[in-house]
C-alpha cells in the first residue's frame, strides 16, 4: 500500500488556488523533499496530507484512508515555527510529552513506555539538558527542535516537516538531518519542504518541485539539473509573484 496517494488534488483558499491537479505517491522508507518558491503551495500540500485542509477536488489518502480517519498518532507533523503561545505553562519536557497524547485513551496512565519515548526524543534532539526549561526561554532553533522532538516522541508512521531547517544554525541543521536520515533508514517515510537546494541531493531520496502543481519529480540531482526550479524562481524574480500573474481562477 502506498503511504501517501494524492490524486488530482485542488486546494482552494477563498478565491486563491493553492494547489491544482496535484498527483503524488509516496512509498515507504524514503525521504521526499519538496521545493518550490514562496507561496507555491508546499506547506499546503503537507497540510492536505495531514488532513488540516480539505481538498476542494481530488482525493488524498494516507495508508489507504482519508487522513482524518487514521488511527490517532499516525501522522507526525512539524509546522513552521508557528504562533503558539510561548507563555503557555509548559516546559520542554511537557511539550515533548504531548507527542504521546494522541495514543493515550481517556484515563490511560502515562506509563514507563511513554516516559522512555519522551526521554529518547529529548536525547535525539539534544534537549535533555533543557528538559525542565520553560518554553519561553528557548531560542528559535531550540523551539524548532522541541517541536521535532514532540513529533519523534509520537512514534508516527509518517513524518511531515515544514521547513524544519529554517532559522537553525548549521550544526543543528546537520544533526537534524542526520537524525531524519536515520529514521528513514529504519523505514519511516518522511516528507519535508525546504529551501536548501544545495543539500537536497544528500538529504532526500526523491525530490519534487511544486508550484501549484508538481512540475518535476525524481532523483534530486536529476531534478535540480533539469532546471525546472531555477526557471520558476527566475520567473518569480522577473515578474513578481506568480499568483499575481495568474490572478484568481
Amino acid at each position, binding site marked *: 500500500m502506498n503511504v501517501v496517494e494524492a490524486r488530482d488534488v485542488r486546494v482552494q483558499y477563498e478565491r486563491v488556488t493553492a494547489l491544482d491537479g496535484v498527483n503524488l505517491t509516496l512509498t515507504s522508507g524514503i525521504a521526499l523533499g519538496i521545493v518550490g518558491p514562496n507561496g507555491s503551495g508546499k506547506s499546503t500540500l503537507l497540510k492536505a496530507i495531514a488532513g488540516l485542509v480539505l481538498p476542494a477536488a481530488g482525493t488524498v489518502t494516507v495508508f489507504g484512508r482519508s487522513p482524518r480517519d487514521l488511527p*490517532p498518532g*499516525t501522522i507526525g507533523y512539524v509546522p513552521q515555527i508557528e504562533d503558539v503561545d510561548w507563555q*503557555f505553562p509548559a516546559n520542554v519536557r511537557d511539550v515533548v510529552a504531548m*507527542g504521546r497524547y*494522541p495514543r493515550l485513551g*481517556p*484515563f490511560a496512565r502515562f506509563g514507563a513506555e511513554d516516559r522512555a519515548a519522551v526521554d529518547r526524543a529529548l536525547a535525539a534532539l539534544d534537549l535533555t539538558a533543557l528538559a525542565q526549561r520553560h518554553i519561553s526561554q528557548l531560542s528559535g532553533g531550540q523551539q524548532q527542535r522541541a517541536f521535532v522532538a514532540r513529533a519523534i516522541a509520537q512514534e508516527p508512521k509518517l513524518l511531515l516537516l515544514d521547513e524544519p531547517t529554517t532559522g537553525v544554525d548549521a550544526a543543528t541543521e546537520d544533526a537534524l538531518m542526520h537524525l531524519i536520515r536515520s529514521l528513514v533508514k529504519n523505514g519511516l517515510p518522511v516528507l519535508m519542504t525546504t529551501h536548501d537546494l544545495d543539500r537536497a541531493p544528500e538529504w532526500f531520496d526523491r525530490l519534487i518541485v511544486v508550484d501549484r502543481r508538481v512540475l518535476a519529480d525524481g532523483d534530486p540531482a536529476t531534478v535540480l539539473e533539469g532546471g525546472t526550479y531555477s526557471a520558476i524562481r527566475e520567473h518569480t524574480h522577473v515578474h513578481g509573484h506568480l499568483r499575481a500573474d495568474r490572478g484568481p481562477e
Partner: protein
Amino acid sequence: MSGILAPFAFEFMQRAFVAALVVGLLCSMMGTYVVLRKLAFIGDGLAHASFAGIAIAYLRGLNYAFGAGVVAVVTALSIGFVHRRAKVSLDTSIGVLFTGAFALGIFVMSRSARSTVDLQSYLFGDILGVSRGDLIVIVVLALLVAFVVASLYRPLLYTSFDPTVAQASGIHATFVDDVLLVLLSLTIIVSLQSVGIILVAALLVTPAAAAAQLTRRFVPMLLLSGVFGIISSVGGLYLSYELRSASGATIVLLATLIFFASIGVSAVRRRRVSP
C-alpha cells in the same frame, strides 16, 4: 454554635457553603482552560445568554437550570458554528450571539406582567437562597463536568497549546472545542445562582489568572487556581455574612484581591531572581 462557626448554625448557610465550595472549585479549574485559550469573553457571553433561558423557564414555570442550560449550550455551539461557517471572527460571533440572547431574555421579561424580583437574583446571585433541590442539581452537574474534563484531560491540554498539530496527530480539535464550550455552559449554569450572571465570568477568569502569575506549569496552575477559587468563594461567603454584604460581590472582590496579591508576589520574586 457561636464565634467563628456562627454562620454554620443555619441550614441555609450550610447549603450555601457547600454550593460555594463546589462552584468555586469548578469555576476556577475550568477557568484554567478559559484563561489559556483566551475564552474570557465567551464565559461572559454564555452567562449573559443563559438569561434568556432563565426568563423563559421562569415564565413557563420550568426549572431555571434546564432553561439556562438549553440556551447556553445552543448559544455555545452556535458561536462555534457561526465562527467556522460564516467566517466571522470569534469575538464578533460571540458579541452578536450573546447580546442577541440576552436581549431575548429582556424582551420576554418585558412582555410579561409577572414580577421580576426573582430574576434579579440570577443577575446578581443569591447563594443564600439555594434550596436542597438546587444543591443536588449543582453537585450532579459539577460531577458530570469534572468527569468529562478528566476523561478529555490530554486532548484538552494539547488543543489548548497547539490545536493544529494536535489535529494533525489525530485529535479531533473541533470536537474538543465544542465539548469544552458545552462544559463551560454547564459550569456557568451551576454557578448562576451563587454568583449571578454579571459576576460569574470573574470566577472563570480571576483565580486562574492569579495562578498563572505564580507558576509556569499546567498542573500546578490548575491546582492553585482551584485553591484560589475555593478561598474566594467560601471565604467570600463567610465575609459577606460577617459584613452583611452581597455574597456574589464579596466573593468576586476577594478573588480580585488574591489576583493583585499574586501579581505582587510574582513581581517580588522576579526582582529577587534578577536584582
